[in-house]
Each structure stands twice: as C-alpha cells, then as structure tokens.
C-alpha cells in the first residue's frame, strides 16, 4: 500500500503537519503551544517563540472617549523609546472641528501652549483629488486633522476618523518628533487622507500627551502602544 499523506493520512493527533526528513519518508510533526511554539518530528525540531518577536511592542492604555473634553496619556515611560497611538472611529461632538495635540513635561499637570512651542505640517488629499497642504513654523499646538479648508472633521454618521500617531523619543533630550496618518470623512461626507508631522520645539522631555478638539468634545477609541527601548 502506498504510504503518503493522501492515501494514508494517519497522524497521531489533531493539528499535525507532514514534514520531510533527511532520509526516509516524511514524518508527522507536532505543533506545541507554550512560551514558544515548537514544531518537531522524529528528525528533530524547532521552536518559534512568538512571544520573543512581540514582546518589544506592548499595549499600554486603551481609552474609549464619549463627550470628553480631552484624551490624555500620562506617565510616558523611558521603558519605551517610541509610542504609537491608534485612533479608531474618532469624531467630534460639534461639526467642522479641528483635532489638536499638545505635550506636557510635568506628567499632565500643564500642557505647553506657547505661541512658538510647536511646528507642524500636513497634506490632505480629498476624493476629488485636490491636495491641500497646511502648516506652521510656530504654533500653540500641533494640528492633527481638519485644518484644511472645507475638510474639517464632521459629526454626522460615518464622518469619523481613523489612523495613527507616532511619537519618537519623547523622553530624550532632543526635540520630540511626531508623524501622523489619518483617513476620515469630512464635514461634507467627502473622503480624505491626510499625512503629516511635527515637533515640540524644546529639548525638555515629553511625558504626557493631550488630544482634543478646537471647540468641543471628542469621541472615539484610542490605544497607546509602546516600543521598548
């Protein structure tokens, strides 16, 4: 009788794989979950440790905002050198809003808002193909989204924003840099994609972040992740 995987699929347990050996026919290998995932058969084995691969990227905090004046993340730790915030279904309570970012050096007791504290730039493209750049070399905050004319954030159904914000080396002594990428339906229901960046124009360490709308409250899901230093 022919012994192959098609005619004699006789593994000894569920979830087994047929793997070739140096000599002889292939042998059934067993997948074992644990601190790492092992794959082994009679010819030997290998361990793939997914925990090792993922342990440098950690979820730090999750925020579900509903009518909040602001969303803040405090206690940014030197355990991480890069932070990443996922924005999901973010929407202002008021129509025609702009979403801003400010930073703190006293763990959120105060947020810097001097006239020359931040520089930023962004470029939005709407579904008509129109490209609209915006920016400032000296501002009281970083404008994350909605600053483009006629492309402000809307508050109708589906007029939400999703995307991400990356913060590089906030606790370092160099100026903290930011990158952001968002997709949203604006106040007219038009689709927009926006990419931008900015900096806190100071060498002071940034240990807290504040995300807020220009003239009203904010809603949505925010997740802060850290990349270990």
């Amino acid at each position: 009788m022919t012994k192959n995987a098609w005619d004699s699929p006789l593994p000894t347990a569920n979830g087994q794989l047929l793997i070739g050996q140096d000599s002889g026919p292939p042998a059934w290998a067993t997948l074992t979950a644990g601190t790492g995932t092992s794959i082994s058969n009679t010819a030997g084995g290998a361990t793939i440790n997914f925990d090792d691969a993922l342990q440098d990227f950690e979820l730090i905090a999750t925020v579900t905002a509903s009518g909040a004046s602001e969303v803040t993340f405090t206690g940014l730790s030197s355990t991480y050198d890069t932070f990443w915030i996922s924005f999901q279904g973010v929407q202002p309570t008021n129509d025609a809003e702009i979403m801003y970012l400010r930073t703190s050096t006293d763990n959120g007791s105060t947020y810097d808002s001097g006239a020359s504290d931040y520089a930023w730039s962004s470029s939005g493209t709407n579904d008509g193909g129109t490209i609209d750049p915006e920016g400032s070399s000296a501002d009281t905050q970083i404008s994350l989204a909605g600053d483009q004319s006629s492309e402000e954030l809307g508050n109708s159904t589906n007029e939400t924003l999703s995307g991400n914000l990356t913060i590089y080396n906030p606790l370092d002594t160099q100026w903290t840099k930011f990158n952001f990428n968002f997709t949203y339906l604006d106040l007219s229901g038009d689709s927009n994609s926006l990419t931008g960046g900015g900096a806190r124009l100071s060498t002071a360490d940034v240990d807290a972040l504040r995300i807020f709308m220009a003239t009203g409250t904010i809603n949505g899901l925010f997740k802060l992740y850290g990349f270990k230093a």
Partner: protein
Amino acid sequence: MALHKMINGVKVDLTPAEERSVRAEWEANKIKIAKKKEEKAKLKAEKERVVEKLLAGLEPEERELIKNKLM
C-alpha cells in the same frame, strides 16, 4: 452637564476652574479659526483674480483647464 476628560482610560470630572478654562479656550479657538478662514478666503480670492488676469487672452476651455490646475 459637567465636562470630563479621559486620562489613561479613566474618566475624570473637570473641576469648575478647569471647565471654565476649557470653555474659554473653545471660545478663543472659534475666533481664531474664523479669522484664519477669512484670511485664507481672501488669499484664495486674490489668487483667483491674478490667475484670471494672466489667462485673459485664452479660449474659455483653455482658460478653465489651466485655471483648474493653478487653483
């Protein structure tokens, strides 16, 4: 209804002083944004006027095509 903020996922009511500060900032931003919009509208109108002047001698279809690119 009192305003609240979300700190690391925890809902925290604003103190009366904080709420006054937030509402004052919202009002200031309304004025600032309206002023910025007005300035941008003026710039756009001025740009449109100059472009129209530059393209005055062209056929309407050509003028519209180039104007769309420039604006």
